[in-house]
């Protein structure tokens, strides 16, 4: 170590100070440039739904409205929508007779200072309007109703407002997206911003646009929410997953939906 330092000093000679400054500024520039390259967000024109990374067969499953695997969720959801629940004796349809077109494209949403995803909003309606017990996260009923509501916004562009009330949640979500975590010390961005389209084992890394939740995932052999998918990813990088409904999870959902603003909703999508 001592030797190497002396050699370098000798080589630099009397220009030592100026050269070091020059080298330092070059290094800073290189660092800035490489972080800009590496942590670049996906340009709008290059955004792709997970659908486009799927095999022809899996796409066919999603496109098949009559016998697609998410059909049972939709049928269950429709029945639940019209079923009177709780002492209030009200069904979803009693209040929301006009349907829920476009609603799912605007969630997660800030309501009186609290950030709610669609599943949480359904449970708020259940407890505050129908006076019924909330459904458990990932329960068949909650997923079915979320899929039924989401289906009505199919084909509509995702529309997350970044107003003053939403901004702090959005900033927190962006921070989680870019934060390295877990034993593998990876951030979401390192895979889904920087390396999308490449392969992680046998699977293509998608861009992480939540365009079709709740999805029917072939790996799960069933329906699941965005929270479940995110918890899956977090387990994959060996990080600790926040509980269902935890603010940090919903903030990340908000950021991802905002990041997919303008993309068409595909709910209920099929994913591999």
């Amino acid at each position, binding site marked *: 170590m001592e030797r190497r330092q002396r050699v370098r000093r000798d080589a630099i000679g009397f220009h030592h100070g100026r050269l070091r400054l020059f080298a330092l500024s070059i290094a800073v520039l290189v660092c800035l440039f490489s972080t800009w390259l590496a942590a670049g967000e996906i340009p709008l024109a290059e955004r792709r739904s997970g659908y486009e990374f799927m095999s022809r067969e899996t796409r066919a*499953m999603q496109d098949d409205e*009559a*016998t*697609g695997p998410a*059909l*049972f969720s939709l049928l269950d959801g429709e029945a639940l929508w019209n079923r009177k629940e709780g002492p209030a004796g009200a069904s979803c349809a009693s209040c929301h007779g006009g349907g829920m077109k476009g609603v799912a494209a605007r969630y997660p949403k800030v309501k009186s200072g609290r950030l709610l995803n669609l599943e949480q909003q359904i449970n708020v309606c259940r407890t505050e309007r129908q006076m019924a017990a909330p459904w458990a996260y990932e329960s068949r009923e909650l997923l079915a109703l979320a899929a039924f509501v989401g289906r009505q916004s199919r084909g509509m562009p995702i529309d997350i407002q970044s107003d003053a009330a939403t901004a702090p949640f959005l900033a927190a979500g962006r921070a989680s997206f870019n934060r390295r975590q877990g034993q593998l010390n990876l951030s979401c961005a390192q895979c889904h911003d920087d390396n999308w389209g490449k392969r992680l084992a046998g699977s293509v890394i998608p861009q992480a646009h939540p365009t079709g939740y709740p999805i029917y995932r072939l790996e799960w*052999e*069933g329906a699941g929410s965005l929270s479940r998918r995110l918890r899956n990813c977090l387990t994959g990088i060996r990080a600790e997953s926040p509980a269902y409904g935890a603010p940090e999870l919903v903030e990340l959902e908000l950021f991802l939906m905002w990041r997919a603003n303008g993309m068409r909703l595909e709910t209920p999508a099929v994913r591999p």
Partner: protein
Amino acid sequence: MARVVVNAPARAKRGEVIEIRTLAGHAMETGFRRTQTGELIPRDIITQLVCTYNGVEVFRAELHPAMAANPLLSFTTVATESGTLEFKWSGDNGYAATQSASITVV
């Protein structure tokens, strides 16, 4: 609760090859999985689908534990005459489901 869906064309030309798609809601538990405490989860799958066209069997499938949940089976037959397509699923633990679709052949 047995839930099944059939998608078959309501009208077809005589001699036309028609595609029929069927979807059955079923967990298709393989019998190879264990619970967290190590007990084997017993097998519970659909084992058979039979389709008859005006009483004549036109398609039969035998299903095994490697089938995914909610099996989608698609097959073709030739539209010969107007009538009814009958579908019958059967499986473990007395699972049974039936569905029918009528077809008009012109």
